[in-house]
Structures are given as C-alpha cells and as structure tokens.
C-alpha cells in the first residue's frame, strides 16, 4: 500500500500558516482592507439593535410617527451600508485570492520541475497532484473565510460584549460565563482535529495514487483481469478514508454541540434575569430587546468559530503538505563557483548560431572547433550512489574512468541492472556524481549551468515520452529551427510516418493527442535527440522497440549523424553496438573492458556472452 513520506515534526497551526505570508504579501493591502471592511460591516450589524432600542424607548413609547419614520430610515441606510460593504469585501478579494492560489500552484509546479529526479522516484505523483489541487483549494478557502472571519468575528464578539456590558453589566457578565468552557473545548478540539485532518489528507493522496496507477497500468490490469483486486485495494483505502472522515465528524459534532448549547443557555439566563429587572422597573423594555438582539446577533460569530477553526486546521495541514515539497532542495546549481560559466557560454554561442546552415557547413565548423578545445566526453574516477541510499551500501557505479574522443561514438554494454541507464543519467546531470568528475571538452559539467550543459548534450531515453504538443513541436524541443531541421531529423530517425499523420507534423500527440506505438514514439524521441545537432549525444537503447527493417534503416541514417558527434550509446544488441566505434563493458558498477566489438568478442567472455547469449562458461572453455 502506498504510504506518504513521514511528516516533519509538528508545529503549531499558527506557525505553519505564517509560512503563507510570502504569497499573501503581494495582496496584503487588499486583504487587510477587506478585513477592515468586514469588521465595519459586522459592527453596523451591531448598531441595528441600538436603533431598535432607541425606537422602542423613544418614538414608540411616545407615539411619535415622525420618529418612527426616522428610525426606519436609519435602519434602511445601515442595512444598505452593511450589504454594500460585505459585497465590496468580496469584490476586493475575489481576484487576488484566486491569484494567490494560482501563484502557489505555479510555484509548486516550477519547483517540482527542478527537484532532483531522485525526488520524483520517491514521491508518487498522486501525492504531488493532491497538493497542487485539493490542498491549494483549501488554502484559498482559508484565506477567503477563516482568516478574515476569525478576526472579524473576534472583533464583533468583543464589540458586542462591550455594548452588552455597557447596557447592563450584570446581564453582560451572564452572557460571558460560557466563554471559558467554550475556549477550552476549542483548544482541545484544535489539537485532536489537526491530527485527523492530516490523516485524511494523506489518505486522499494515497487514494489518488491508486487511481492514477490503475489508469496508467490499465493494460496490465486488463490483461490479467485484475480489476477486482485493484478495486479491492481501492475499497480498502477509501473505506479507511471514510473512517477518518467520520472521526473528524465526531470531533466537529462535539464542538458544535458545545458551541450551540452553552451560549444559548446563557441567553436564556439573561432573558429570565432581564425580565425580572424589567418587571422591577430597573431596566427598560427597549434595553432588554436591544440586549437580546445583540446577543442573538453574536450567535453566528460564536457558532461559526467551530467550523472556522476546523477549516484553519485543515489549511494548516495543507500548508504543511505544500511546504514539505517546497522545502525539498532543488537541483544544486553550479558547483565550485560560476567563473567559467560565461566563457563557456560564449564559446558555445557561435556553434549554435551555425545550426541553421547546411550540413556541410556544420561539418566544416565541427572540424574547425574540435581540435582546439575538444577533448570529448571524459569520466574521471566517477562513483555514484543514490543520495537516499545508506552511505555504507555499495555504490551503483564505482570509479568509472572512460574517455570518448571528440567525434567518436562509444557503445555501453552491460547486463540488465548493471547501471548503464544510471551512467547515462549522469551526463545531463539528472543525477549528480557522488565522487569524481565528468568533463565535456575539458570543462567539468558540475561547473556548467544545467541550462548550458543540457543544451550541449541531447538525450534519447529508453522510455520515449512525448508531450501534449504537435509532432513537430515535440521533435524541435531538442533544438534546431524550422522545417528543414525537422525534416532532416525525421528522416534520420526514419520517422517519415509523421508526414502521413492526419495533420502531418502538426498532429497533436501525447497525453492529449493521438496515441502512437512504442516504435513510433521511440523514433520521434530519437529525432528529438538529433534535431539540434548536439555536440554530445546520449542514447539509451534507442532502437529497442523497432522492427528489424526499420532498425536497419535508422542505423544507416544514424551512422552519418554519429560520424561527427561525440556519442554514448547504451546497447543491448550487436546491431546497435556496431553503430559505435568502440565498446565499453560495464559490469558490477565498473568498466571492465574497452575496445572494438570484435576485440571484446575475442577477449571478454562476459561480453561475448552478452552479445551472443551463449553461456559465459562455454565461451571460457573455448578460449
């Protein structure tokens, strides 16, 4: 069952919510104005009973019609003012609050895109998604209501209580009596509710993960007819969520019960006492009416505290969940200062400018630029261990030394799970080397900006992912400009099928478009890798999903591209290996042999085994 990464040590809800300040800051003026207006509107609500009192004790008692008209006019004006102020408050915050929500979502998205790949390996995307949607909606609602109204209601209650105390202090004290028990209940409640709220939100995240997986893995589930067990898992999780929600409801019911009963009892007591005083003549009827309408006007502010606190609590956990992700450190920038950055960028600029030219020009330029600075792609004493792996565990890659000369292509061969894909991920710095360094033409990649590094290294992944965009846009993500580059790249990757799609290269693909086969996606991914004529090319088993004929055609075209590109190619098959000038054998996290295909076939039994499938033992015997 999916579980959530454990939450950090709990802090108080207020301190957690304070972290929202940077997002609220830009709209603080409006938010404060809105709160002030709400307070004003609420206080107008409290003045209305006083007008009533004035009418009862004055014009009504004196039978003065003019006074009655005046009183009613006051009431009308106050009522209109209250209505317009409340509306004004909402108008003030409507756009800013949607903006805050959107800003936070954009920030989360931006941050997530820049978190290390290792982070994404660990976090199910359902948990991330529930933060970007449900949690942020909760936060917007918190800013719209509880934040303002906890303040507004507090002030309203205070003003109301003062008004009541001024009118009759004994009755006022009676009304105040339940304040203490209500407060205590609120505090106890807040603690217990926050735990339940957090649990519920995490369970929603888990549920989202199951939904997502069941959709993404639908073919497997269908293929094995496993929708029942999948539904079983879903039922269990959603049942658990129901349990938590019911627990929350019980807590909420308790506090609501207390909040409804105690103030009502106090009002009852005040009524009886007040009636006695009116009978004695020590209190005017108008005052009693005003007092009671004030007390009743305070009912909503008091009643609502329960659910406002509940919402705040949920908002606090939502904030916590949001910042759990936001606090994760993004990929570090340039290691060891930026001094070399600008110079390198400058050197790279002319190369990129030349991309529009013909292939001959490109080649000429390639030759021109290589000898001076070019020393190819070099792994120097590189070790790698996943950052979350225990430090005493064996590294995935151990002291790798490898040199790919400029314009040379090197095939990387190794058994399943030997670390080939991990090694390729180090070049574009999807993972950071633990020890040692990797250099491109002599420059340490750790000292380059990622932007620059990744503009010089193009990658085709084993699992070709296309994005929701047109075929053309997907390919041109790799660099290059315009029709000509696109056509050339599609031709290299034997992806000419793209022209025959319903809208040609403008056909939408990816999540929201036409679904393509694995082979077609792989060819487009390959086109994407070569379209920008990168200096360095990393291909992770780029032909695995192609049929033999297509593969042969792609190889022929790729060979021309590889002639002047420095390339690292993960290969499983002899046909792919033959694209490369030399081969390196990766075994147990080390490079154990380097040489041409034929050399290694002769000298390395492991390599011969990998390439022919014959048991290693036999090869050894033959040798």
């Amino acid at each position, binding site marked *: 069952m999916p579980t959530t990464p454990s939450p950090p040590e709990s802090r108080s809800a207020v301190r957690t919510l304070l972290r929202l300040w940077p997002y609220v800051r830009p709209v603080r003026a409006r938010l404060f104005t809105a709160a002030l207006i709400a307070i004003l509107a609420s206080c107008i609500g409290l003045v209305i009973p006083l007008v*009533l009192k004035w*009418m009862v004790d004055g014009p*009504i008692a004196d039978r003065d019609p003019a006074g*009655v008209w005046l009183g*009613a006019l006051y009431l009308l004006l106050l009522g209109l003012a209250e*209505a317009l102020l409340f*509306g004004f408050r909402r108008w003030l915050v*409507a756009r800013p609050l949607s*903006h805050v929500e*959107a800003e936070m979502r*954009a920030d989360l*998205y931006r941050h*997530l*895109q820049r978190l290390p790949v290792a982070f994404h390996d660990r976090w199910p995307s359902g948990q991330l*998604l529930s933060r*970007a*949607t*449900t949690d942020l909606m909760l936060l917007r609602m918190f800013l719209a209501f509880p934040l303002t109204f906890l303040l507004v209601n507090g002030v309203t209650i205070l003003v109301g209580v003062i008004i009541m105390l001024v009118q009759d202090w004994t009755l006022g004290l009676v009304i105040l009596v339940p304040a203490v028990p209500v407060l205590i209940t609120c505090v106890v409640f807040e603690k217990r509710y926050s735990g339940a709220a957090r649990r519920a939100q995490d369970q929603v995240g888990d549920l989202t993960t199951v*939904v997502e997986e069941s*959709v993404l893995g639908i073919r*497997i589930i269908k293929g*094995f*007819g496993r929708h029942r067990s*999948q539904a079983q898992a879903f039922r269990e999780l959603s049942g658990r969520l129901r349990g938590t929600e*019911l627990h929350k*409801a019980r807590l*909420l*019911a308790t506090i609501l*019960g207390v909040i409804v009963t*105690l103030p*009502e009892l106090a009002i009852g007591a005040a009524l*009886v006492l007040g*009636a006695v005083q009116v*009978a004695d003549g020590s209190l005017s*009827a108008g005052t009693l009416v005003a007092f*009671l309408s004030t007390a*009743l006007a305070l009912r909503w502010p008091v009643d609502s505290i329960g659910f406002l606190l509940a919402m705040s609590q949920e908002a606090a956990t939502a904030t916590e969940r949001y910042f759990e992700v936001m606090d994760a450190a993004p990929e570090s920038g340039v290691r060891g200062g930026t001094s070399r950055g600008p110079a390198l960028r400058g050197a790279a600029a002319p190369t990129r400018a030349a991309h529009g030219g013909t292939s001959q020009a490109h080649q000429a330029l390639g030759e021109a630029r290589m000898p001076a600075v070019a020393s190819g792609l070099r792994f120097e004493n590189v070790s790698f261990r*996943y950052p979350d792996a225990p430090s005493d565990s064996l590294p995935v890659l151990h002291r790798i030394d490898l040199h790919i000369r400029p314009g040379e292509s090197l095939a990387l*061969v190794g058994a*399943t*799970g030997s670390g080939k894909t991990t090694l390729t991920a180090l070049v574009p710095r999807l993972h950071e080397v633990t020890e040692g360094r990797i250099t491109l033409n002599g420059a340490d990649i750790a000292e380059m900006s990622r932007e620059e590094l990744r503009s010089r290294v*193009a*990658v085709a992944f084993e*699992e070709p*992912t296309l*994005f*929701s965009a047109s075929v053309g846009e997907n390919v041109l993500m790799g660099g290059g400009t315009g029709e000509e580059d696109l056509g050339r790249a599609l031709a290299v990757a034997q992806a000419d099928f793209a022209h025959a*799609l319903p809208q040609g290269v403008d056909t939408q693909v990816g*999540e*929201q478009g036409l679904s*393509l*086969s*694995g082979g077609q996606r792989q060819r487009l*991914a390959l086109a994407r890798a070569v379209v920008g004529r990168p200096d360095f090319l990393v291909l992770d088993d780029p032909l*695995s*999903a192609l049929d033999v004929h*297509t*593969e042969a055609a792609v190889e022929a075209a790729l060979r021309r591209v590889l002639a002047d590109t420095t390339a690292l190619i993960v290969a499983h*098959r002899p*046909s792919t290996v033959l694209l490369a000038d030399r081969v390196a054998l990766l075994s147990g996290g080390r490079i154990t042999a380097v040489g041409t295909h034929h050399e290694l076939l002769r000298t390395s039994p492991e390599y011969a085994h990998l390439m022919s499938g014959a048991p290693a033992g036999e090869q050894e015997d033959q040798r």
Partner: protein
Amino acid sequence: MTAATTAPVRDEDDDRAPASGDPFDQDRLPTPPGATGTLLRSLLAPMRGRVAVTALLLLLQQAAVQAGPLLVAYAIDRAVPAFRGDDNGPLIAVAVGYLLCATAAGALQYAFVNASARVSQDVLLDLRGRIFRHAQELSVDFHERYTSGRLISRSTTDVESLRELLEEGLQELVMVVLSAVYISVLLLWLDLGLGAVAVASFVPLYLLVRSYRRRAGRVYRKRSTAIATVIVKFVETMNGIRPVRAFRREAANDADFAVLNRRHERTNGDALLEMARYVVGSRITANTTVALIVLWGAHRVADGSLELGVLAAAVLYLRRLYDPIDRLGMFLNSYQSAAASLEKIAGLLAQTPSVPEPPAPRELPGRRAGLPGRDVVFDDVRFAYRTGGEVLPRFGLTLPAGQTVAVVGSTGAGKSTLAKLLARFYDPSDGRVLLDGVDLRDLTGRDLRREVVMVTQEAFLFSGTVAENIAIGRPDATREEIEQAAKEIGAHDFIAALPDGYDTDVRKRGGRISAGQRQLVAFARALLADPAVLILDEATSSLDIPGERAVQRAMATVLKGRTAVVIAHRLSTVEIADRVLVMEHGRIVEDGSPAELIDRTGRFADLHRAWRDSLA
C-alpha cells in the same frame, strides 16, 4: 494489396479517428439527458431511511433553535406583567423552556452532524467505488482516448466538489429551507401582516437565486474544465520528468502551465465575483425588508394594535431568516460546482464498455488432461475502427492447442490488433474469436482472464512490493510460488539483491528497478498466472541478449502445451516458435514453421537474413 493504398499510415495502437470535433477533445462526453439526476437518485436510494432520520434530526434541531425568540416574546408580553402581579409561574416556564431548548438544540446538533457525515461519507464511498470500477471495466480503446489525467480528475477533484456539497452545502440548504419555513409560519402566526411582508420578500430573493444559479453554472462548468486541463499538464510533466529535464523544458512548461493556470484563476475569480454580486443583492433585499417591517410594526405598536414583544420577536426572527442567506450562496456555490462535476461523472459512468460482459455466459470445457493449452480459432474475423478504416480484412486462422505462434511484420501490419482481439481488448467487427469452440464474447471476464493473459510492452509497476507486483498474476499465490516464478524467469537474483528482497517497495529507497528488470517482473507475473493462452507483445525489447535467452528458455518450458502468440520484433524470439505468421497491411502473407519460411524466398527469409547479419 488493396489495403496498402486505402489504409493511411496508422499504427496498431492507434485507435482513434483523426477527428476534430471528437467529443474526447473537449473533455465533454455526451451526458445523456437525466443521467445526472438518475445517478444522484441511485446514490441516495439505498440510504433512504438514514436520510429520513437525518432530516428528522435537523427538523427537531431547528424547532429547538427557533423556539428562542418565541420565548422572548412570551417573556416580554406575558411573563413580565405576570411577575409584576406576583405570578412567577410564566417566568419559570420561560426559564425551563429555554433550558430544554438549548440542551436539545446542542444534543440534536451533535446527533445530526454525525448522522449526516455518515450519509455523505457513504455516498462518497459508493460514488468513488463506482467511478473506479467503471473506469476499470471500460475497454482499452476507451482508455486510449480518454486521457489518464481526465480520468484522475473525475475521481479526485470532481468527487471532492461533491464532498463539499454533501458536507457543507446540503446541510446548509436543508437548514436554510427548514428555518425559512419555520420562521415564516411563526411570523404569520405571530402577526399575519408582518409575516406576509416577510414572505413577500421571498419573491425577489428567489429571482436573485435563480439568476445567480444560471450565471454561476456557466462559470463553474468552465472552471471545472479549466482545472482538468491543469491536472493533465501537471501529471504529464511529473510522469515525464526525465525528458523534461534533459530537453530543458522547464521554462517552456512553466509558460504553458501559466496559461492553463491563469485560465483557472480567471474562472475562479469570475465565480467569486458572481458570488459577491449575489451577496449584495440578497443582503439589500433582506435589510430593506427588516426596515419595512420595523417601520410598519412600530407604527402599529405606537397605535396599540401590536404588542412590543411580538415586534421584538419578529425582528429577532427576521435576523435569523436572512442570516443564512449568504450561506445559501455558499451552498449554491458548492452546488454549482458539484453539479458540473456530477454531470461529468455521470457522462463517464454512462459510457458502456465496448466489450460488455455476456448476458448468458458459457462455461469453457475443462482443460484436456496433460495439455494446459486451448484451441484458438479466428472464424471469419474482420476488424475496422468504428470511424472506418479497415485494419484487418476478413480472415480465418486456427491455432491448435499447445502451439507457439510468432507473429512478425512491420509496424502497422496489424500484429497488435490481432493480439488485442484474442485478449478481447477489442471485439471483432465481424466474425468470432473462439476459445475451444466458445465465442470469447460468451465468456465471463473472470473466465477469460484466467485462460488468456497478455503481457504488453509497457512494464508498469504498481506501488507496493516486488512480490505484490508479481502476485498480480495470481493474487492467491504463496510466497514460494512467487519466488518459483521469479526463479524460472531469471528474476530471482536481482530481486534477492534488493534491500528488502521480495518485500522491497518499488517506490521506496533502493527500489529502483531498470526497464529490463521490470520486464522480467512482468514475465514472472505472466508465468504465475498460468493461463491456457499467453500473448506476448514485443515484451522482450528492453532485455539484453542473455536476459532474453533466459526468458526464452523459461518460456520454452512454460509454453510447452500452452497456446501462445508472440508478437516478435526480434527474430531470436521466433526461434522458440512452432509456427510463424508474417503479416503485412492487415493480412497474413506467410504461414509456416520457421524452418520452412527460411527456406522459402519470402519476407520472412529476408527478415531472417537481415537479423543473422546483424548478429555477425
């Protein structure tokens, strides 16, 4: 080959029309009229009794709450004069009455919140389950068109907005309506004239609510679509984070996301502004009515035709009548967004699986002794997309039990379609696919999946342990059986080397599993399932040669006696086959044993030569 000219370059996985105006494009599945209401009724029907109890609790709670001002009127007009006359009975009655009402209101509130939470949670549980099960039952071609992001937003944000409605909105609505009825009756009873004024104010309020509903409905539908596009983009980015990084898509993605996010922000703001307009309107109506009633009431108290206590009670009641009107707006809010969501959910639930369960299922005969396989017959089968475009012209094919058949051919030749027909991911347009003489359409899903298993090219792992992932093949398998399957397929060694062996969580620390290893897990899954018919679709693509060989060796044993269809891109896979089918443009152009075909001078002989050369 007439098909060559008529069929566009279209891949076997491509099952959609090159359509504009496709309902899937706009995230708008046709929702049959009335489907939303039917769905809501069917959700609530099973808990009719509990809904009634909950309603009763609320009815009583409101009665207890609304008694307050009545007691105030009684205290001012009756108890005070009586007390002056040394009769403190009425005052004691007021005290006791208030005590009872307050306690009852609190207790009933407690009971009501619990009861209504139980109802709404059960409705949500039911609805979540329905969406989930339904999505699982819908056929693969549906999933290929309805993107995963949309499905996810159906069962997350859309359900969430329904939750808001049930937890906050519905309760509000009933409370508002109930208190409106109570208070109107009480006001009319206290004084017919004042009551009539209050009731008359419902007319402008109703008009206001109606116009708000209409305007907000439009906004909410837009908002719900906007958030769905945000989710699609989000999910796509997170699932493709590696290429996003490698191709420096971050900034471009930020920009794309900003557009979608801003659209959501705008619709969101629009919704809040509609709400603001509504609040102003309703408040003005309410406060004007209060002023009118006080004006008229005060005149009548002054001329003695109305008692002061009644006027006080009327004013107190009016406050309570109009107080919840803002909250009615909040309810309408959640109602609107829930209605929009529910409509989309209903549209999803109204989709019928294109491969339905049989109304009268047939049993398969028992497997023949010693032979785990079954006969497969494609009887005069033809397959075309519903939008036209024939993929497989009419053909017949018999695969005797126990035969291993390799299907080769270039991309788009129809290999995958053939396999998907056999796995009943699709049904043929014409003709029948028979398993031991029984039409696949007459088998229950359960029987079919026990007999026919397909291992597809994507080796997706579910969260959970490695063992659980293998056990998807057969959930009741013991640990020994799981390990045995892994050993036979050659996956045991790498699994044992993981931090927690078979119990390693694939999403957790140290659980990184390469594409090749994932395919081994997928094979172990298939092996464990022990089907009569096994379909392998390009499944060895990420394996290295020794891995592939190990799998092939294991398969040779496993496949013995079973009927197997292997869609091979690699000719090494073909070596274990008894028979090879070469497909081209949807037709089987060569059919024979591997040795026979190599000796002939056809497509297969060419392919085989090319492959041999590549090994040299």
